C-alpha cells in the first residue's frame, strides 16, 4: 500500500480536506433517528434527561 491510511478526503493546497465531503452526508442524514440512539446510550451511561437536553444543539 503506497499511501498513508486516510479515508475519505481530497487534497487542496497541499492539505488533506474532508469537511465538505462529510458535511453533505451529515446534512442529508436522519439526524433525529441518529440522536435517539445516542440519547438512549447517554441515558444508559447515567445522564439525566436535563443533561441530555442541555447538550442538544438549538433547533
Amino acid at each position, binding site marked *: 500500500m503506497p499511501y498513508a491510511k486516510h*479515508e475519505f478526503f481530497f487534497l487542496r493546497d497541499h492539505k*488533506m480536506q474532508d469537511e465538505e*465531503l462529510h458535511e453533505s452526508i451529515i446534512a442529508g442524514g436522519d439526524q433525529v433517528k441518529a440522536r435517539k440512539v445516542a440519547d438512549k446510550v447517554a441515558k444508559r451511561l447515567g445522564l439525566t434527561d436535563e443533561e441530555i437536553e442541555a447538550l442538544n444543539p438549538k433547533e
Partner: protein
Amino acid sequence: MPGGTEFFYEDENGEKQDDWLHEEILAGGDDDAMREISKDIARKVGLSEEQIAALFKPRATKTKAYVKRDEDDYIQDPKTGLMQGRKPGGGATAPSEKPAAGKSKKGKAKIDDFKKADIRIDPEIEGDEDKKLSFEKRWNEAVGEAPEDFKRQFLGGMPGSMRISYNERPDAMHISGYLKDKDGRDIAEYSRDIDLDDKHAYSAYFKVKEGVRGGGIGKKLLAGNVEMYQKMGLDRVRVSANIDVGGYAWARYGYVPTPSGWDSLKSGYLKGRLANLERRLTGASSEPAARRAGVETYTPDEWAVISDDDQERIYEAWARSTRDDFIESEVQSWHDNGGSTDDAKNEMAHQFDGNDRWAKVAMNEWRDEETAIAQIPFSNEQILSAVNIKYEGDGEGRNDPEIEWDDTKLEKPPGFDPSQLHLPGIEKPYYPSLLTEEMRGEIEAKLVKAFNNEAESRAPDMEPPSHLSEYVDEYQGDYWQGMEDRERFRWAERNGELPEYEIEVDASSEEPPEPEPQKEMELAKPAEMTALEALKKLVASDDPKAIWKIADSKYGKEMLLNTSWPGVINFSDKETMNRFNAYVHSKD
C-alpha cells in the same frame, strides 16, 4: 551414400523431414533474394515446381497439437513447435464454452469471470496455477459472489475499476481501484483490506478528486462496502478517523472507538478540549489554575501577542501535525504528473527478460491477429528472447519504450539442426530475416502498447521515491509563511496550542488589579453548566459509544474536530447499525 538426404532433419520417430525447413524460408515472404535461394534449394533437394508452389501457399490443415500457453490454448505444430494462432472453437478459452461473466458453471467463480467483470487479479495469482486455484477456492468459500455482482455491489452501483490481490497468509484480500464518472474519468481512488480469517474489513484509503462532489459517492461506496461485508459474513469494518472533520463525522455515522482508542482519546484530546471548554464557559481555567495556585493567567486572543518562542513552538506543532498531509500531497502530485508511471516504465524496462507476462499476452494477441501469415517462424519465447526494451524516462511517463532486436537469438528456428543446414556452394540462409520488418513492426507496436498499459496499471502501486519527503520541510515553511495570522491563531486555538501567560502585576501598585467586569459577564449560564457536567460524565465513561452523544452535542465539533482515533462498526450491534443507517441509508 543415400540420395536425397540433404536439407532434412530427423523427427522424434527417427524419420527424415524437411517440410518446415522449406516453409520457413518460403514464409520469409517479402525477401525476394531469400525466396529465390529457397526455391533453388528446394529444386536441388528434388522438389517439383508444383511442390515448391505448394510450399508458398498458406499452410494446409495438418496434424496439430494443442499446447497450453498462458491462459489460452494455442495451436502448435508438433514437429516444429511453431505457434500458429489460437485454437479454433472449443478449448479452455473458447467463447462457446465460457460461462457468462458472473455466471460460471456450477456457480463457482473462475479467474476468467474476473476478467470478464473487468476485475484485475494480482498477476502473481494469475501466473501461478496453485495460487490461482487457491484464490478461486477461497473466493468461492469466503465471498461466494459472482465477480461481476461483487464489483457492482461493492462499489455501490458506481462505475469503476477494481484490482484484487490475495495472500494465503494471513488469509487477507486487498481490493483497490478508481471510481469513474460517466465519461470514464477517475473521480476517486479507494483501497480496502479484508481479513477473511478474522472476519473484518478496513477502509484504508479513499481519496476524492478535488472539485468532485464527493459526499454522494462517499456514501454510496460506504453503503456498498458494508452491504457486501455483511453478505460475506464479516463481523465489522474499521476506519482510521482523522483529518479535519473525520474524528467528528465518523462518530456521527455510528463508528465507535476501539477500547484502547477510546482510552487514548479520553486522556488526550477530550481531556484537553474539555478543559478549554470549561475555561471558555466559566471564564477560568480549572487545570492551569490548580497548577498555578494564586497566579492569574490569561490566554492570548490574537497571534500578534503570542511570544516569538511560542509562535515557533506552535509552528513546530503545526508542522508535525501536517507533515503527513504535505507528504501525501507530494505523493499525489507525483502520481498525477506521471511520476509513478515513469518509474513503473523504468522498472519494467530494467527488469524485462522476455518472461514478462504482459509481453507474453501481447505476443499472443499479435499471433491471434496475424491471420495473413500462415506460419510464424519463431515461438513467442524465441521472439521475446530477442527483444530488448529501453526506456528513457521523462519524469512524466509519457515516452514510449524503444524496442531493440538481438538477431543472434533468432538464428535457430525451432527444430533447427545446424549440422544439416549448410549446403555446399550456397550461402547460408539468414534466419532472423524470416521475422520480417513488417512482423517486427507489428510486434513492436503490440509490445509498446502493452508496455504502456502495464505501466499505467502498475503506477498506483509504485512506491513513491524517498526524495519526495526531502523538500517537505521547506514546503511547510513556505506554506506557514503564507498563512495569515488569524489562520495561525485559529489552528493553535483549535489544537490546544495556545500559551497561557501570567498577568504581570505592577509592583508599584498597592492594590491588586480588579477583576475585569467583562469576566463576570462571561460566566456560564446554568444550562451550559449542565451541558458541561454532562460532557464530563461522557468523557469519563468507559463505554466508547459515549462518543455519539458528544458528537451530536452542540459542542461536538469543538470536542472532536481534528482528533484521530481508530473506529469500528460492529455489524451485529443494533444500536450501531441504526445510527449508521440513519446517515448512510438515508434519502438525501
